């Protein structure tokens, strides 16, 4: 989805200092965090989706609760499903949500 140059299979690289991403939350992750989205300037040591989730969990009790079951929370990068190892470099939008239950 992203037009930024980033080849699948690249090793995670450090996000550019202060890279800003929109973080969106859905369903019970949204309810526990207490907001639907926010703008985040990525810390220098956060390079992957999984590292972002672990960093978010340290931001307060509501975040800790939302990310308590870290193995259950799923993620998308620029509106495509990704694994926790996915690098954030070049991303504009990251989303965290429970396993989907449509249909």
């Amino acid at each position, binding site marked *: *989805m992203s037009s930024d140059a980033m080849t699948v299979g690249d090793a995670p690289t450090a996000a550019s200092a202060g890279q800003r991403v929109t973080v*969106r939350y*859905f*369903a*019970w992750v949204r309810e526990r965090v207490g907001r639907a989205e926010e703008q985040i300037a990525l810390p220098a040591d956060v390079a992957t989706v999984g590292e972002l989730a672990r960093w978010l969990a340290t931001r307060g009790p509501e975040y800790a609760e939302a990310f308590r079951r870290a193995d259950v929370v799923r993620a*998308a990068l620029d*509106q*495509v*499903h990704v694994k926790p190892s996915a690098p954030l470099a070049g991303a504009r939008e990251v*989303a965290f*949500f*429970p*396993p*989907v*239950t*449509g*249909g």
Partner: protein
Amino acid sequence: MAVRVQQEPFEAAAEIQALTRGRTDVGGVVTFTGLVRGDVAGRPLVSLTLEHYPGMTEAELGRIEAEARVRFELLDCLVVHRVGSLQPGEEIVLVVTLSQHRQAAFEAAEFLMDFLKTRAPFWKKETFADGEGNWVDARDSDSAAQARWDGASAIQK
């Protein structure tokens, strides 16, 4: 080929008519309609609220539909999914597949539903008479249903 996400109800018969009007190459139409069940383990449900991820939902449904078109000899297909607050008995999802021969339409409809249930970013929240809300948990049986498509389809192109 189309995917739609909407609040308003859909009319399956009208959708089929729109898909088949003027065509003489269609040998079979398969439709699946998902409805809101009125109870959860014997507990009466007041409403079911469907949340989704605008933008990604349409993109993911489009990717699932594109995969179905690669795997099956489809003449056309349609996926309609409702969002918002729904009452028991109301329709949630519609899948319509058209093919020359029935097997492709049957298989593609199952494929679309299995992938929609495990990939499309929708979340259901149940509301009960006492006002309690409960986010529906993903079911292992849905993941198993999706996993069976990992092998080659019997009617792959």
